[in-house]
């Protein structure tokens, strides 16, 4: 807290002629407008995701357009569609392969909680194995909701502390998930 007070003091003295900021803030600003996506798309929500990425809604406006299919280069794991138990090890592997910093976006009711598939084969939400940053429910969610979620994620990223990283691997190893 002390540091923040000092900053306010500086800005008070210098007036509007100088903008004081911290490296964390600048990096956060850079990161929040430059998500490279890893679209992990398995089911019907994918149709709606296409609409999000397409011309009418255009996710590129938020700087989050570029899909990188190599997890090393991706920042935001967008999990779209029903995740069955068979899929979990794959999802876990992709998450573990992503380079830090990384965020997870739960897109659709199935990913958030298993949705209407309350049965033996479907994972009841990916947060059972991965740390999820934003939940966007809906079956499928409207693009407006997705953008709302994305903007909330941007707010989180803007104010993140460096101490949050690295997040490390997922909760379970590949063997445990089998």
């Amino acid at each position, binding site marked *: 807290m002390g540091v923040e007070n000092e900053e306010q003091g500086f800005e008070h003295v210098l007036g509007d002629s100088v*903008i004081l900021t911290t490296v964390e803030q*600048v*990096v956060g*600003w*850079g*990161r*929040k*407008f*430059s998500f490279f996506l890893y679209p992990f798309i398995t089911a019907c929500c994918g149709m709606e995701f296409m609409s999000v990425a*397409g*011309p009418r809604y*255009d996710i*590129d*406006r*938020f*700087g989050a*357009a570029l899909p*990188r*299919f*190599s997890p*090393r*280069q991706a*920042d935001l794991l967008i999990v779209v569609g029903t995740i069955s138990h068979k899929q979990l090890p794959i999802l876990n592997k992709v998450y573990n392969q992503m*380079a*830090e*910093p990384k965020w997870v976006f739960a897109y659709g009711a199935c990913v958030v909680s298993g949705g209407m598939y309350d049965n033996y084969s479907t994972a009841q939400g990916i947060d059972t194995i991965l740390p999820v940053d934003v939940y966007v429910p809906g079956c499928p969610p409207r693009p407006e909701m997705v953008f709302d979620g994305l903007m909330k994620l941007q707010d989180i990223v803007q104010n993140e502390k460096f101490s949050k990283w*690295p997040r490390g691997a997922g909760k379970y190893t590949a063997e445990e998930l089998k």
Partner: protein
Amino acid sequence: MDITLIPGYQYMPELVEMMLKIVFIFTMNVGVFAPLLGYVERKQSALMQDRIGANRAAILGFTIFGLWHTMTDAIKLIAKEDFIPEGADKPLHFLAPFVAVVPALIAFAVIPFGGTYYLWGHEAHLIIADLDVGILFIFAVAGIGTYGAVIAAWASNNNWSLLGGVRTAAQMVSYEVAMGLTIVGVLMVYESLKLTEIALIQEDFFMWGIFLQPVGFLLFLACALAENKRVPFDIPEAESELIAGYFTEYSGLKFAMFWMAEFVEIVTISAILTVLFFGAWHIPFVTHDGLLSLLTSVVGADIGNLLLMFIHLAVFWGKVCFLIVFLMLIRWSLPRFRYDQIMKLGWKIILPLALVNILATGVILLVVK
């Protein structure tokens, strides 16, 4: 102290000129074009797909048409984890991005971006190294760029990377052969390998390469696109097949360097095309001496030369920018070729056509002379 006492003082102007030129080319490529092309590509794709494109990042409320997104990308990539896979060859993994970028920059050393100007008793040539074998030097250096991709693929210890690297090698070797032959027609017409001489002949509008060698131009364009490894020739990194090809295992800034290499290559290709086919720094129907005498009569010889230099620089880079936009237009219009189609195009279509072009050029030259 008398400046003439410093040993080698008579070389000072040359040294200063050389440094200025190198700094200019370096900033032009790495500082201006590499980041800006990322932006242009993004906005152009948005335009072509009827989207708005990146426009949210703002400083103090100014978005300047989304230009900040270039900066946010850079910040993000710098702050990203630098990943080296287990079992990778660390030194080579580190070296590969540099091997990819540097040759693309070096090739610019022999490309003239302006003529000769007499400034306050000093003769300034707007080319860094005026080699007699300029065009061959470019091919030689471009060949080294291939190693960047292949080393990256090999050092990553990843099957997808390796496949990408093998494809790169195959594609580059095939198209380098064809590319060398497509240019022979141009060299026969201008009777020189020296890029400055080729450029000087094109002062006459009707001597532009595109009029004398239209077939050669089209073939060279196709080969240059293939050498650039971008869509429609992006088989080495084909996302749907190889994840990200030879740079699958690269993250952060090193991954960005492969991109930068591609962008610098686009600039280099556009500059070569300008020099060989689009009259280099010359304005159509305006001769160097004509414009110079006009400027000299208005503002004097030295300032006139200086002004002429800036005009020619603007013309040259304007042509380069036009060609860059054209190349990007191709990138966003065409789907990717299949691997066998690329090989067929290179060996069975472009190569024979280039040979026929050489033959035809030779016959016509014989008849005309």
